[in-house]
C-alpha cells in the first residue's frame, strides 16, 4: 500500500444531525491530520447531508480514515477519490474599490479573461465572483492583488464524482 502523500477528496453521506461535524472532524484531529477544506450541504437524496473534505495524506492512511468515518453510527457511506476521479470546483469572492474598474482598464480584461462574474456594483465597491480550480482562483488573486483587494474569501472544495456512488440503493435496501 502506498505511503506517498496525495490529495484526496472525501465524500461522506450522512444523516443531518447536530454534532456530526464535530464527530467527523475529530477523526482527523485525533490523527494530527490537517483538513485543507471542508464543506457540508444537502445531497441529491432528501434528508441526507453530504460532506466534502480535502486532505493530503497517504492512501494507506486514507483507507483507515474512511473506515473510521464509516464506523460512525450516523454516517451512511464514505468514499475517497483521487484528483482525476472527480469534477471539482471552488468558489471565491473579491470585494474591490469601484473606482478601479474605471481607472485601471486592465481590470476589465482580467475579469473577462478569467471568466469571473461581477455580482454587484455600487459607488464604493464591486464584488467579483469566480468559480474554478484552485490555481485559477490563485491566479486571479495574484492579478487583482496588484490593484488592491478590500476583502477576499474562498470556499471549500465541492466535488462530484465521475463514477456513481450508490447511496440511494443502500438506503433502499434498508427500507426493504
Amino acid at each position: 500500500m502506498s505511503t506517498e502523500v496525495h490529495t484526496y477528496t472525501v465524500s461522506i453521506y450522512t444523516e443531518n444531525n447536530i454534532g456530526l461535524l464535530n464527530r467527523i472532524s475529530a477523526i482527523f484531529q485525533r490523527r494530527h491530520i490537517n483538513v485543507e477544506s471542508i464543506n457540508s450541504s444537502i445531497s441529491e437524496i432528501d434528508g441526507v447531508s453530504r460532506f466534502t473534505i480535502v486532505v493530503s495524506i497517504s492512501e494507506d492512511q486514507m483507507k483507515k480514515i474512511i473506515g473510521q468515518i464509516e464506523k460512525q453510527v450516523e454516517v451512511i457511506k464514505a468514499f475517497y477519490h483521487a484528483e482525476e476521479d472527480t469534477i471539482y470546483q471552488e468558489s471565491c469572492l473579491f470585494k474591490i474599490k469601484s473606482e478601479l474598474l474605471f481607472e485601471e482598464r486592465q481590470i476589465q480584461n482580467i475579469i473577462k479573461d478569467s471568466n469571473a462574474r461581477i455580482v454587484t456594483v455600487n459607488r464604493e465597491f464591486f464584488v467579483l465572483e469566480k468559480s474554478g480550480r484552485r490555481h485559477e482562483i490563485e491566479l486571479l488573486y495574484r492579478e487583482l492583488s496588484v490593484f488592491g483587494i478590500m476583502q477576499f474569501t474562498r470556499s471549500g472544495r465541492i466535488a462530484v464524482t465521475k463514477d456513481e456512488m450508490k447511496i440511494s440503493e443502500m438506503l433502499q435496501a434498508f427500507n426493504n
Partner: protein
Amino acid sequence: MKEFETIKKNNTSTKITETITGCEAVVKCLLAEGVDVLYGYPGGAIMPVYDELYKYQDKIHHVLTRHEQGATHAAQGYARISGKTGVAIATSGPGATNLITGIADAQIDSTPLVCITGQVGSHLLGSDAFQETDIVGISTPVTKWNHQITSASEIPEVFAKAFYIARSGRPGPVLIDITKDAQFETFEFSYDKCKGVRSYNPVPNTDISKIEEAATLINSAKKPMIVWGQGVILGKAEEQLKAVIEKANIPAAWTILGASAIPTSHPLNIGMVGMHGNYAPNVLTNQCDVLIAIGMRFDDRVTGNLDTYAKQAKVIHFEIDPAEIDKNVKTDVAVLGDAKASLEALLLLLDKKNHDSWHQQFKDLYAIEYEKIIKNDLNPTKNGLTMGEVLNEINKHTKGDAAIVSDVGQHQMIACRYAKFNQTKSNITSGGLGTMGFALPAAIGAKMAAPERDVIVIAGDGGYQMNIQELGTIFQTKVPVKIVILNNDFLGMVRQWQQLFFDKRYASTEMVNPDFVAIAKGYFIDAKKVTQREQLNAAVKEMMDCQGPFVLEVCVEKEDNVFPMIPTGASVSDIRLE
C-alpha cells in the same frame, strides 16, 4: 435535527400512549429495556429523574456510588460479567465530566454502556450556567453515539436508539444528555424498541468465499496459531471457538480481554500474548505459518514492533468491525461478520489435524518459561511474598470458578497470567485504556450482576486508592466482593520501567500508604493484613469464607518485576525472560 425518521418503526405494535413527564419517561424507557440496576450520583440538573427513581425504587435499583467515575466502572463490571448493557447516571457539569474516564474505557474495550446526564435548561445552553458543560462535545470522541435531548418527546426514540446502538455490533458506550426542562415537560409517551438505524450496519455481511479461503489456508497449514480476543466473548462464540481449535488441533492464545473464553485448563489454550504474556505464543507468533486472529484488534501491547510481527505468516482476521481490518496488521484473508456464525461455518470446512511437532514447540518453550519464571512466581523459595503465589493461593480456593476483577499494573499482569478460569466472562479488567482505579467499582457491578459468583478484586496499592471511596458503596449496599490488595508500596509497573529503562530513577513511584485495614474497618468491612507466607493460606480462606465483603492486604516484595516482557518497540519474539 430530523433523525427520528431513521429509526425503523415496528408497525405491528399497538401503541398505548399516556401523558407523563420527561423524567418519568426516562424511567419507563429504562424499564422497557430491562434495566434492573443503575449506578449514579444525583445533582441539580438530574434531580427530576431521581425523583422518579424514588417512586420506582421497587422496580429499578439505583446504586449510589461515591464518585461518578465509580458509577461508570460499576456499570462496566455489570456489563462485562453479564453481557447486558450497563447504565450510569449523573448530573450536569462535574457529574458529567467525571463519567468520561469510564466512558473512554468502555469505548476502547467495547463495553455496552448507556450513560445519562442531566443538563441545564435549554434556555441556558451556552450561557456558562451553573454546572453547565458541553458534555456532548466532550464525550464525542469517546462514545459510539451521543445525543442531547431538549424536548421530552424525543426521549422514547432516543433511548430506544441508545440501547440498540450500545449493545449491537461491536458494543460501546452511548451518552444521552437531557436538559432539565425536557425532564419536566409532559408529553404523550409510548415506547417501541429500536430495530435498526439506516445509517448503521452493526454486523457486516459475511462473505462465505472468505471463510472458504480461510479454511483452505488453515487446512494446508503446518504451524497454525490462533489468537482470540474479546470478540469471541462479545459474540458468544466460545463454544464455536472451542470446536474449531479442537477439530483442527490449533494452539490458541488470547489477548488480555479474551481471557476466560476457553478454560485456562484446556490443553490447546497456550496462554496470553502480548507484552507480559506467555513466552511460547509470543515467540511462536513469529514462526507460525498461518495466524488466525479472531475478534481481536492487534493492539500495540499485543504486537510489539509491527515491522517484525508475524511477517512469515498468512494472516486471517475474523472481525465484526471493518475499520479493524488492515488497521495495524495487513491481513491475507479478512472474514467480516459475526464470530459465532463465521466460526460455525468454518468448522464444517476444517480438516482434522494433529500438528504434534508444532505443539511440542509450545511445550518446550513453556518448560523454559516455567523454569525461569513461573516456578519462582507461584512457589517462591526466597523470602518475601510474590504476587504470583497470592494468585496461586486464590486459585486453590476458587478452583477457577471466581470472576477476577483486576486493576491496572503489575498485579493485573500477574492476575491475567496466573488466574485460573473455568467459565467465560470471568476476567474483568481495563485492557485498552489501562484505567487505574477500575477494579474496585467494577467488582461492585460484577457482583450485583452475578450474585451467585465469587467476585475477587486484585488491586495494587496505587490503583486501589484511585477509587477507594467506593468502599462506601460496598458498605452501604453490603455487596460481598472480596478485595485483595497486593501492596508493594510502589506504583509497581512504572517502577519496573524506571528500573529497566530509566536507570532506577524512581521518580514519584514510591507510595507512603495508609493503614488499609483501618480504612476498611472505618467502613465496617472485615479486613486482614498478611505479611508472611505462613499466614497466606488461612487469610485467603478466611476471606473466601466470609459472608460479607472482605479486604485482604498482602504485603508483597517491593521491587519484583513482571516477566516475561516485550520492551516497547521490540519484536514479540525478542520477549525477555529476565
